[in-house]
């Protein structure tokens, strides 16, 4: 059996003495799309943010690749270098860099974090834009993009470093129902031999359409 892309054991998150996540165990295998479902406040986004090392947790362990996240304050960026290329996240609302074109949003980290040469950066961006069908929008600024286009650019940006785990927070929140099934197919295609997806959503239909496995969360525990 291959090692999971993500392994969570006994995860507990408290804020101001209040438990938000009360002991979660979860494995996501490479190539698997796993949907975290639950109502607002169930703790879906908190789990994603903990796995993305954006928030501290109180107890348990989170393992991605060869990196183990420990309870306590989030480690400084300098100690998370390989983790940061292994785990990427597509935020609810996209969080594109408003002052950069779609193309520059995708290439910025390749140039300044991974320090790829210009030709390799260009090739990767072209490949991703073609994959996601937004090649014609590479020169547009985020505010000139439609919701669907912005989401694709945000996905391209997250995929650019070729992570082994892609987190997506409520990917359908800004889409009409006609587009959801298309997005579900696209999302499913993003998982490959070496990449797992963990998606938080409250959209049952979407979860069923795109995920290999659906985990239900209620009151901070898996039900």
């Amino acid at each position, binding site marked *: 059996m291959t090692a999971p892309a993500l392994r969570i054991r006994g995860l507990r998150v408290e804020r101001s003495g209040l438990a938000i996540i009360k002991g979660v165990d979860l494995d996501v295998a490479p190539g698997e799309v796993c949907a975290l479902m639950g109502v607002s406040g169930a703790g879906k986004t908190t789990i994603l943010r903990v796995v993305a090392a954006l928030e501290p947790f109180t107890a348990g362990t989170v393992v991605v690749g060869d990196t183990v996240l420990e309870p306590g304050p989030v480690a400084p*960026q300098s100690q998370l270098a390989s983790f*940061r290329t292994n785990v990427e996240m597509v935020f609810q*609302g996209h*969080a594109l*860099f408003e002052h950069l074109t779609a193309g520059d949003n995708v290439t910025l*980290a390749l140039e300044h*974090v*991974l320090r790829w040469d210009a030709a390799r950066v260009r090739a990767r961006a072209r490949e991703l834009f073609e994959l996601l069908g937004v090649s014609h929008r590479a020169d547009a*600024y985020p505010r000139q993009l439609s919701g669907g286009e912005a989401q694709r650019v945000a996905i391209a940006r997250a995929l650019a470093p070729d992570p082994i785990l892609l987190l997506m927070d409520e990917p359908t929140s800004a889409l009409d129902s006609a587009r959801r099934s298309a997005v579900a197919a696209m999302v499913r295609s993003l998982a490959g031999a070496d990449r797992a997806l963990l998606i938080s959503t409250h959209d049952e239909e979407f979860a069923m359409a795109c995920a290999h496995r659906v985990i239900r969360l209620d009151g901070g525990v898996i039900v």
Partner: protein
Amino acid sequence: MNARLRTRGSLRQLIWLGAVAALGCSGTDTTRESAAQGATTALSTQGELATRPVLKWGGDAEGGAPFVEADPSDLTKMRGFDVELAVMIAEGLGSTPEFVQVAWASIAASVERGDFEIGLSGVEDRPALRERYALSLPYYEFGEVLAVRPADRERFRSLADLAGRRVGTLGSTLAYQMLLDEQKRSGLVPVSYENDVHPYSDLVSGRIDAVLLDDIISERSLRRTGGFVIQPEPVATAHYVVMLARADTARRDSVNAIIRARMADGSLERVFRDWNVWKPTQAEHFARVLGDVPTASVAATGTGMTSLRSYLPALLRAAGITLVLSCLAMALAVGLGVLVAAGRVYGGRITRGLLMAYVEVMRGTPVLLQLFVIYYGLAGVVRLPAFAAAVIGLGLNYAAYEAEIYRGALEAVPRAQLEAGRTLGFSELQILRLIRGPQALRFALAPMTNDFVALLKDSSLVSVITVVELTKQTSIYATNIGSWLVPGILCGVVYLTMSLPLSHFARRLERRWSVA
């Protein structure tokens, strides 16, 4: 000439405004008996007072004794030789005198717009003023004298000895005009002050090499502070006159008649003796006036800047100073503001607290006070050149405002973008440089432009620490010719020439960025 502190909103000025508001300025206030005697004649009985017309006279009580000062025992009463002369004139005109406080440099403009009938507060007799106003006979002759450090007594006896040296005086005065004339001849460097205390303290501390001012003021400073000597031979002689509106020639003639009568009957001499400003030369001056011998004109040409053409180079030079000063101060403010803002956003609790204190202190106290402290207050520790003190003072003050703008702008960049930057592996410094900073700059652009335009105008405050910038130069010119109309318009046009392109540039940049 009267000493003055044209500091905006200075505490003293506020006290004056309150203190002199309803002042019937009787010379009876003086503590000395003879002066009281002279003044009592002006008051007569209460009944008579009620029916007599009021003669409003304007003067600057900040000038202090012996010209016009508030009576220390009753701040609502004025005293001084100009006060007693005003009482004599009012008495001669059958009126009750009423004092109106006015800044010395504004006496001419105020008398012309009718704030009071006569201006009388060490007003200097100048050809340019005679062309525009009705001036009385010269009632007092004074000498423009040089004050130097004791060691320089033999070295600096005249203005010609001071070639290449810094010589201080009050801006907008005859003495300042003389220094400007001398500057063209020998390269002497005039230094303009806003009050008559700092020239002498700067002389003693070595910031300047001499002070040229009226003998009355020099002698008063010598008594107060000391540490220097006054050259016995005046550089020039000049006169104080009573100023009236141009069309008020009939009253001017009456004032002249009163002055002659008081010179003849000895009462004016008594007043000057009481105030310890009577000199033998004064008797000769009185004799000349009474004998209709023309009084010797001032040695200084006094015409160096009376024409627009001769004023323009000085105005452009001053505009250059304003522009360079503002740019340097803004550069300092931006640099320091970025550091303070970054410290307030990223720093620990102690750093944040200290920087917040800095911002609050700089924003919460007048920039004028800060300039005074940096230039004069710290003189014992570090003696900064005036221009450097001006750049630092304005820069430190504006840095506080800039820091708040940048802090707000940094915090306006959505948090999710910063987190996206973190998940992509950028360091915090890279996030600031590549993601947060560029966006914050766009948010900050409009308020920054506002601030720079404000700084351009606030730079006029540095005249209090002897930097002659655009507004000060204009004020000097206006006082010279006795009118604010042309100088005011010119000055405004120059400010607009500097600020409008800037606003235009900022709007263009904003439009370009609004797409992104």
